[in-house]
């Protein structure tokens, strides 16, 4: 069974096609078309314990570290980067957590604003587009959703809690409610074809009206205000595209109803969000996704690990506090376990060419800090998993000496995804692509 993306031009057309598809085979092109590449970015907060994170050895001969032990089944499909430096975070307003979060995927200064952190000058949101959205500009149009952002109890909506940006002052919020995410991705409407046609026509004409109304507003208001209205227009344009194929459905996971404020549900929410993310990619609803655990400065306890002290509080303890250090290793190892679950899900989906979805993904696990108690932005703990259709030479630890600016890594990520750029973010901190050869 194959699914030519161009055929999803009628409401509901996807449903019948998909009903007979052979999942867990990815709903993608046939043998004649190359299997597409996908990018997933995973975030966990507050830095790591670097010497418990960095594997022993180098190149292809390495032993996984305590924190990364859960990734053992995927050792040959990992690329572990040692020596990436968020140099851009030395510049601009904000405290180290804010800058770490805002620079992580944008490589550019935060805007000035009214949010005061624990240090530095007050700031607003990030001052530029994030790398995933830059890639979206090239390939987002190929799928129903240009990108999908998932969150696990992110809860806040400030600069510490946003990593994906459509542009300056344009943070993209993640979907935090699995039930709502399910509905957005997989809900199907049972209706006659004529009713479906009437609905589609109404939706399109209504969105056209909204577009015209916003366009008129943008032309009449002050220029600062017009920028926000124009962003709104772009968002309406994005959802107009999603009308097509709205009834698509392909073996979505079961989504339990969970309280989104009870910290004890954190692991369960993580699991279902990852299930949804994998299903969305498997159904080719998008090719760019992210998964954000909590937020920078997250102070959640982890009762399921018997850790009652908040994560951020623990991350500020001195290196000599062995008990707290052990807790931090446990926390980061738990996140590695989550990352492994995601990889496992991706690896269980077969592509049309016999490879797995993971083989065609680049899954990047990243953090806003290196070391919590000093708020350092280097060396950033970066784990890349997947083969990206053979473009990634995995099973290695790559050490960069001298350290390399993370803007260079962002350029490389874009290049690997087919986006042809030579610099990204603040050019002061970008010297070209980072070789992962």
């Amino acid at each position: 069974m194959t699914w030519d993306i161009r055929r999803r031009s009628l409401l509901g057309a996807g449903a019948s096609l998909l009903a007979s598809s052979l999942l867990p085979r990815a709903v993608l092109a046939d043998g004649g078309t190359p299997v597409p590449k996908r990018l997933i970015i995973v975030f966990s907060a507050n830095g790591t314990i670097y010497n418990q994170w960095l594997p022993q050895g180098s190149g292809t001969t390495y032993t996984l570290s305590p924190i990364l032990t859960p990734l053992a089944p995927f050792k040959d499909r990992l690329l572990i980067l040692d020596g990436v430096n968020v140099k851009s975070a030395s510049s601009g307003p904000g405290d180290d957590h804010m800058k770490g979060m805002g620079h992580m995927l944008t490589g550019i200064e935060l805007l000035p604003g009214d949010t005061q952190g624990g240090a530095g000058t007050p700031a607003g949101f990030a001052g530029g587009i994030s790398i995933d959205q830059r890639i979206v500009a090239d390939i987002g149009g190929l799928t129903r959703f240009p990108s999908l952002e998932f969150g696990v109890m992110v809860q806040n909506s400030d600069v510490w809690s946003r990593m994906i940006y459509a542009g300056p002052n344009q943070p993209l919020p993640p979907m935090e409610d699995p039930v709502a995410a399910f509905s957005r991705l997989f809900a199907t409407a049972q209706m006659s074809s004529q009713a479906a046609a009437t609905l589609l026509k109404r939706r399109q004409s209504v969105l056209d009206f909204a577009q015209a109304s916003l366009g008129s507003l943008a032309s009449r208001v002050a220029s600062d205000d017009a920028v926000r209205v124009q962003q709104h227009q772009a968002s309406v344009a994005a959802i107009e595209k999603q009308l097509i194929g709205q009834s698509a459905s392909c073996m979505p996971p079961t989504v339990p109803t969970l309280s989104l404020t009870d910290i004890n549900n954190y692991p369960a929410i993580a699991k279902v969000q990852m299930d949804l993310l994998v299903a969305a990619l498997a159904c080719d609803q998008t090719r760019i996704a992210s998964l954000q655990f909590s937020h920078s400065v997250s102070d959640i306890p982890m009762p399921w690990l018997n850790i009652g002290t908040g994560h951020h509080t623990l991350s500020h303890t001195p290196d000599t506090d062995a008990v707290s250090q052990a807790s931090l290793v446990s926390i980061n190892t738990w996140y590695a376990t989550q990352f492994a679950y995601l990889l496992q899900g991706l690896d269980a989906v077969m592509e049309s060419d016999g490879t797995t979805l993971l083989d065609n993904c680049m899954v990047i696990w990243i953090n806003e800090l290196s070391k919590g108690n000093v708020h350092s932005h280097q060396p950033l703990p970066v784990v890349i998993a997947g083969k990206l259709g053979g473009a990634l030479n995995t099973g290695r630890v790559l050490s960069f000496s001298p350290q390399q600016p993370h803007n260079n890594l962002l350029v490389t990520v874009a290049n690997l995804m087919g986006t042809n750029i030579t610099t990204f973010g603040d050019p002061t901190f970008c010297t070209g692509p980072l070789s992962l050869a």
Partner: protein
Amino acid sequence: MKRAKRTPRTKHRIGLAALLLLPIAIGAACVGSVGSGTSQLLGASASSGQSPLAPAGQQAPASDAALDSESAQCGTPSPGAAPLRRLTQSEYNNTVRDLLGDTTHPADQFPPDQQIGDFTNTAVALTVPPLLAQAYQTTAEQLATTALSTHASTLVPCALTAGTDACAQSFIQTFGKQAYRRPLTTTEQGALFALYQTNSADATFSNGIQAVIEAILQSGDFLYRVEFGDASQAQGAALPLTPYEMASRISYFLWDSMPDAALFAAADANQLTTKEQVATQARRLLQSPNAQPAVQQFFQEWLTENELPTVSKDPTTYPAFTSTLHSSMQNETNAFINWVMWASDHRLPTLLTSPVSFLNSELASVYGVSGVTGTALQQVQLDPTKRSGILTQLSMMTILGKPDRSSPVLRGKFVRDELLCQPIPPPPQNLVITPPMVTPGVSTREAFVMHEAVAECKSCHTLMDPIGFGFENYDGIGQFRTVDQGQPIDATGTLTGTDVDGPFNNAIDLIKRLATSQQVSDCFATEWFRYAFGRGESTDDTCSLQSLKSAFTSNQFDIQELLVAVTQTDAFRYRPEVTP
């Protein structure tokens, strides 16, 4: 789904006035002798009772001198900036309630409003990402479907089964005016009628009307509070608002919602132009039940109460912190605020000092109050030697606590930031911060006194910790205690850098001082200003703020009168000219 907006942490609006003083007063942080460092840092002399002020987004920072100058010329209206404001979640919920009768709070399912600064209604942060645009679309469809299937007859002036073009025209004119909060232009009516025709032609009248409702709910004129002012009445660069714009300002400020019929009628009759007319409407709205949730919204964000639902505590340290207690805490505080604002004397000192509270059996057992049974809240008098107003309630002490201990730092910082408008400068960028862990036998006060020993910590923490220690009788979930880790509680201290400096024995004493502070009342007025206008203040707001603070003072710190005074300011009654 209820969401918190942020977690307690080192975060606040910083006063640029304070920031500008930084190099002189405190060097890299709050370095210097505590005495002089304090008074300079806080930029406020006790005699003037004036406090540093927060920044105004992208605008020029306001200095104390400029903002509070006695000689400020307040003759010509000076409205300050008036950025375009998108409906917040709360405003959306209330607006569709009043427009369509929908009480499902659909915006609770939207992605949370993006936040810059203290409040979630900061205009420049309220963008519309695709996830929100999609939520608008889905919600518009649901709202239109529900309205037409349950009470079409109250909206549409004909039966859906006997619809005519004339009926559609009439509906567009009436419903459009409600939704856009002003009469529609002929062009706008024409565009909506064309949409109706497109969708009714090969389908049904009802489908056409549904399209019109969905389109209006996704239009710029509905989702934003659009204002241009009345250029024909310009006073210098300041334009008075048109009557319809003024109707929306009043109702969104006091009700978080669209104007009601009386406000529309007043606008139709051009009766919202004088200060008196505006004040009369403001007083009328304040006495409506609709004002309660809107005023609550301010308090929730000012007090960071909206963080409570996602606060987590260590169950071993705090076994009493059950999910039911968690939600009861919030209900207690909401009930108390409502009591102060609508049943009591609505004065700020009452909010800070009243021993009245509202308990159910679970709360009562934590407070040690006997005779309260059941889950419903009932009004009680707490022991005035142990509890004083909002600050010592369980919810506040829980929010301003760590998962496994109290937090003198969060508590002291809250008082400086939110009550005194004296933002604490952040720690130096390179300082390694190591908060003490809970250690058996070592009290929280003993553990945090270490800040005294480290110069980089002391300079700033001396402004926070001594105040925070005043709250040491309340543990991380607000339970009263006299012993911490086997050590007797020491909640004594001395308040410095304010207009009410002096020693205190405990939180009750401390709050008593704060409740008489001019700085606290001025700060409270300033917080309301920020909330009312969705922005920080600037030099252009000097006269508006001055009039607000003096009205609050001369009305014995009556909060209802403060809100009326907001509607009398230049910032409320005028706006700058729009230049696209």
